[in-house]
């Protein structure tokens, strides 16, 4: 076989492979959306789930997902930001830094089920938080920290050293330069990273099964006192999220409209995650434009 024939065959094979991959991936998305979207309705999105009869919704799960997401981001962002600032602005090359970087890398590659089990062991059992929003938020924080730290660090590293020198030359300390010069300049890319990580956190289930729990008790959406047990804001109540709900009903659900609920819930989950992913770059680009032109 001469080189030209081989070239043609190889090109053909590569085309075929990419075609198949594109087909698999597109049909997957289409499958979830086409199967799920017809089941979506205001009623479905807002009413509570039903265990034994048809007509249940995903209202509480959806609320739980967002509530947990916000809490997890509120806890993890400052920590990740601090860690990223230290790594990018203060850490000198050396043993300590390389150990820390290795630790973060290992944390980012830990299976999320292990993170969930750790959360179960420490927060649910040892600290007595039980299956609760709080335990879930901490587990999601641990799950989110390494990637968010790395993404913020990358954002900081993209700001040229000229800016740091400029700050130093004006008698500003490293910290003042970082807070007032580097961070504002890095905001667009940090925001992109945060929104992307929010998408990841929103879809996570394995870390939550044994921390936030698998049940969604009825909530009284008129009661916003976080100390009341039926208040949506109560951090000590168990909170099944949308992703966990999808897993749960597919594993052991017995309601007659199981397929419809599962399809609808999956579509909602995917739509939200896609929205996060789409908007991440859009928002980042918009902020960047604002920063350089205003």
């Amino acid at each position, binding site marked *: 076989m001469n080189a030209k024939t081989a070239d043609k065959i190889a090109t053909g094979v590569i085309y075929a492979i990419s075609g198949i991959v594109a087909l698999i991936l597109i049909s997957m998305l289409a499958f979830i959306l086409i199967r799920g979207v017809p089941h979506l309705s205001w009623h479905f999105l807002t009413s509570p789930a039903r265990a034994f009869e048809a007509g249940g919704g995903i209202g509480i799960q959806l609320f739980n997902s967002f509530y947990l997401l916000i809490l997890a981001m509120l806890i993890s962002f400052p920590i990740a930001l601090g860690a990223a*600032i230290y790594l990018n602005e203060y850490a000198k090359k050396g043993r300590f830094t390389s150990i820390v970087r290795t630790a973060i890398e290992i*944390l980012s590659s830990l299976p999320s089920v292990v993170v969930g089990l750790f959360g179960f062991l420490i927060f649910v059992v040892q600290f007595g938080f039980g299956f609760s929003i709080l335990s879930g938020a901490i587990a999601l924080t641990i799950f989110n920290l390494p990637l968010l730290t790395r993404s913020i660090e990358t954002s900081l590293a993209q700001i040229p050293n000229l800016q740091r020198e400029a700050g130093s030359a004006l008698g500003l300390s490293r910290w003042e330069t970082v807070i007032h010069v580097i961070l504002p300049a890095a905001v667009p890319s940090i925001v992109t990273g945060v929104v*992307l990580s929010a998408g990841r956190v929103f879809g996570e289930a*394995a870390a939550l099964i044994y921390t936030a729990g698998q049940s969604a008790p009825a909530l009284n959406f008129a009661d916003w006192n976080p100390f009341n047990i039926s208040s949506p804001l109560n951090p000590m109540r168990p909170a099944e999220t949308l992703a966990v709900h999808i897993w749960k009903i597919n594993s052991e659900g017995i309601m007659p409209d199981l397929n419809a609920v599962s399809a609808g819930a999956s579509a909602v989950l995917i739509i939200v995650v896609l929205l996060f992913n789409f908007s991440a770059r859009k928002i980042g680009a918009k902020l960047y434009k604002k920063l350089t032109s205003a």
Partner: protein
Amino acid sequence: MDKITQKLMQKSESTKKDSLGRAISLAALSLIVIVVISIFTFVMSRGLSTFFHDGVHVKDFLLGSTWNPSVINPQTKQPYIGALPMILGSFIVTFLAAIVATPFAIGTSLFMTEIAQKRGAKIMQPIIELLVGIPSVVYGVIGLTVIVPFIRQIFGGSGFGILSGTIVLFVMILPTITSMTVDTLKSVPRHYRESALAIGATRWQMIYKVVLRAATPGILTAIVFGMARAFGEALAVQMVIGNAALMPHDLTSPASTLTSVLTMGIGNTVMGSLQNDVLWTLAMILLLMSLVFNLVVRAIGRKGELK
């Protein structure tokens, strides 16, 4: 001494702020390290108590082929705690998924970087990026509603099993491996390609002999990352594998993985009991395996540097 010289000798506001900021950010970093250390300490100590506290032999655990911790074996007076079925299950689905995904990932990456950059950037890139972010339960739902019935029709049986698990994981790690491979291929310097073409190589020769060779360490890293993700994936696999803790003897009968047994079992056992401890030992294996994957990635990176 005038005012300025005096000020030069004192700690300025900036210096104070800097010390404080440095301390705060170091504290945040230390917190992450403490979390990592405590994950290892707690999971390991629970996992090891199977051996030290409950007196189970490591050999019985790793090589025993019967898993039924709540039943006592009348001969050995020990519960059935052979974890080999799950360990094998995890490794088999991981390797099969990686083997199937690799050619698809490399082919797609080549399409995106070498054959049709424009269409690659316009169509494939966004698809791949979106799919990296799809939650794993969604892959599980697809497995359950499409793949399992499909396998059932073709091969008979329940449809649950290693084959279904493999297919789900294949689709799941495909975007991960592809996007990392694309990054590696893009980092191969342009003059490598140009000099290959300049001496009369066809495009395929250029790809095969130059680009892929130069990108090998990066591609291997991508594959190992994909395997790490597959090995640690819990829910998507648990939904389609059948959850029968039996030695896998063919690809289409129900089996289980470390993660699926953990997901199913940890809530149904009492903390501190042997039935619970052995589950923690499975978690410990997961933990150690993710360390191993990390080490492999590092080793590949180091070898790549030497070249």
